């Protein structure tokens, strides 16, 4: 086995380790009564944001395309899963119903991903970004105008089956699938495409189908996150899935480090908790995100900036624990 695989594996294990340790800490806090009700109420949202960020990172960080319709897929999944749960509430026990709802939500979102993806993915860059944004907005308007979705008033009656443990399990599954995928032949093809489309095609990579695959996988997990979301609140309205929501997920991905799964996870945790923890912060939250986006991009694009970032280890918030050897190795060969 090559050094690379060992490193990739080690890296993944560290990420799992961080997530599991954090879960254990929270579980102990909840069990011993150290966690307030308020704290407990944001645990599921943390899980939802992790799933959203990790799945968006697959598209932004590994495929290298910007999708601004992630919230749209989330809403499709949420409505599909919640409607299923509402109609089967009396027939199925929660232990069967909820996982099924999540699978249905994910699959429906993935189907939408295919439907939107096939025509749209011929585009790339700015065009793709704006079209995914448009697709998300179309989904939102249509949901508001449909009868069975509860329209603008929202969908009521979803059983509130979400809890932290389920959220945690779904986070682990998401991590497992996406991290394994990224390290496989298929993940390599997607990264190759990101780095050089023409060369990837010349190596036998079918650009369109891989682009679609990454896009649809992202949509699937966004849908699952949506189901989790729908089962966490008593009412589901389409307006929470507007493109601002998509951009919020993007902020998490960018701050965590584009292409860093661990970074996305840690960034999702911090960004979900911060406004809750610091009341004063909430007012300036979006302003600070905006500045952070710009500063991150500016720093990332200059030699000096990258130096500062790697010194701060801010590029991926999670790289505090990253093994330094990998970086040195790469630099060592730089002549």
């Amino acid at each position, binding site marked *: 086995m090559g050094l690379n695989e060992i490193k990739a594996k080690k890296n993944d294990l560290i990420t799992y380790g961080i997530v599991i340790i954090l879960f254990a800490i929270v579980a102990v806090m909840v069990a011993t009564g150290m966690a307030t009700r308020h704290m407990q109420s944001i645990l599921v949202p943390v899980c939802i944001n992790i799933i959203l960020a990790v799945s968006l990172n697959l598209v932004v960080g590994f495929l290298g395309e910007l999708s601004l319709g992630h919230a749209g897929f989330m809403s499709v999944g949420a409505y599909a899963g919640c409607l299923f749960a509402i109609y089967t509430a009396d027939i199925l026990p929660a232990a069967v119903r909820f996982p099924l709802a999540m699978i249905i939500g994910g699959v429906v979102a993935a189907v939408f991903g295919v439907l939107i993806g096939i025509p749209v993915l011929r585009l790339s*860059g*700015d065009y793709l970004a704006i079209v995914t944004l448009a697709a998300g907005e*179309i989904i939102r*308007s249509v949901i508001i105008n449909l009868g069975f979705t509860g329209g603008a008033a929202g969908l009521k009656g979803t059983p509130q089956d979400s809890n932290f443990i389920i959220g945690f399990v779904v986070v682990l599954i998401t991590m497992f699938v996406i991290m394994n995928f990224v390290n496989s032949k298929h993940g390599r093809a997607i990264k190759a495409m990101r780095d050089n489309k023409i060369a990837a095609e010349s190596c036998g990579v079918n650009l369109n189908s891989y682009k679609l695959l990454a896009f649809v996988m992202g949509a699937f997990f966004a849908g699952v996150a949506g189901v989790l979301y729908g089962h966490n609140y008593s009412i589901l309205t389409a307006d929470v899935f507007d493109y601002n929501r998509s951009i919020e997920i993007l902020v998490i991905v960018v701050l965590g480090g584009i292409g860093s799964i661990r970074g996305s996870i840690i960034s999702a945790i911090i960004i979900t908790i911060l406004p809750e923890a610091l009341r004063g912060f909430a*007012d300036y939250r979006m302003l600070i995100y905006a500045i952070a*986006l*710009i500063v991150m991009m*500016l720093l990332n694009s200059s030699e000096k900036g990258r130096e500062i970032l790697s010194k701060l280890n801010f590029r991926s918030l999670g790289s505090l624990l990253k093994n330094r050897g990998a970086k040195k190795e790469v630099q060592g060969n730089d002549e």
Partner: protein
Amino acid sequence: MDFLSNLISGLSLGSIYALIALGYTMVYGIAKMLNFAHGDIIMVGAFTIIVSISTCGLPVWVALILSVVMCTVLGVVTERVAYKPLRKSEPLTVLITAIGVSYLLQNLALLIFGSSQKSFPSIFDISSVHIGDLSMSGESVVTLAVTIIIMIALSLFINKTRAGKAMRAVSEDKEAAELMGISVNKTISLTFAIGSALAAVAGVFYGATYGFIGPYTGSMPGIKAFVAAVFGGIGSIPGAMIGGLLLGVLESLSKAYISTELSDAIVFASLIVVLLVKPTGLLGKVIKEKV
């Protein structure tokens, strides 16, 4: 007659889109970037009017000039600070930065003006125009007329002046233009300046037409104007104009005859259709990567 008045209100809305789309298309053509924050410049322009007239009590013409100056400066400064360092970066980086700038402007406005919509002072004291049964609001007439004048002036500027020629050269090939003694930096700044000034004008018309302005006012028309620019073929000035007008009419007619709530969905769906059928838009050119 209903249809005609819907058509006219569509054209008036479309003129606003066209004004914004002109800025998008020029910036896209020359700096090769989607300036996501362009729509928010409209909001800044409109707020400048509100502050100068309602708060400071300045005369309308001073307020108009202030608004244009404010937006122009903002556009140029944004380019210098946020976009210029990224000129050699990947499109993804630039786009994320532009989204950041858009959010920054929105949230600054939110902090300064609060989230409630502010009423826009009436600045065009023009009575409605009646032609037979048909009545057109004064704003509509002015908007349409000014947009057409601006488009003609802009076309002349781009095609007849030295600076316009420099713009076209930079949009074709930055390096070659630089070697020919054209200052790429100045040309890009000028492009942003013109685009932002047009956004200010669009902001004024938007405020006058709808009467209220909030921190997020600019984002939807901004996105739709980008759709308009894509419609017409990105990089093409007459294209932006035609795209804007078409989109305005499409939106107005679908509001009138299909559904108010679904009109945005229809506008966006038409974008997807256009990109599928003719990805280069009505008047755009194909650009292929050299292998």
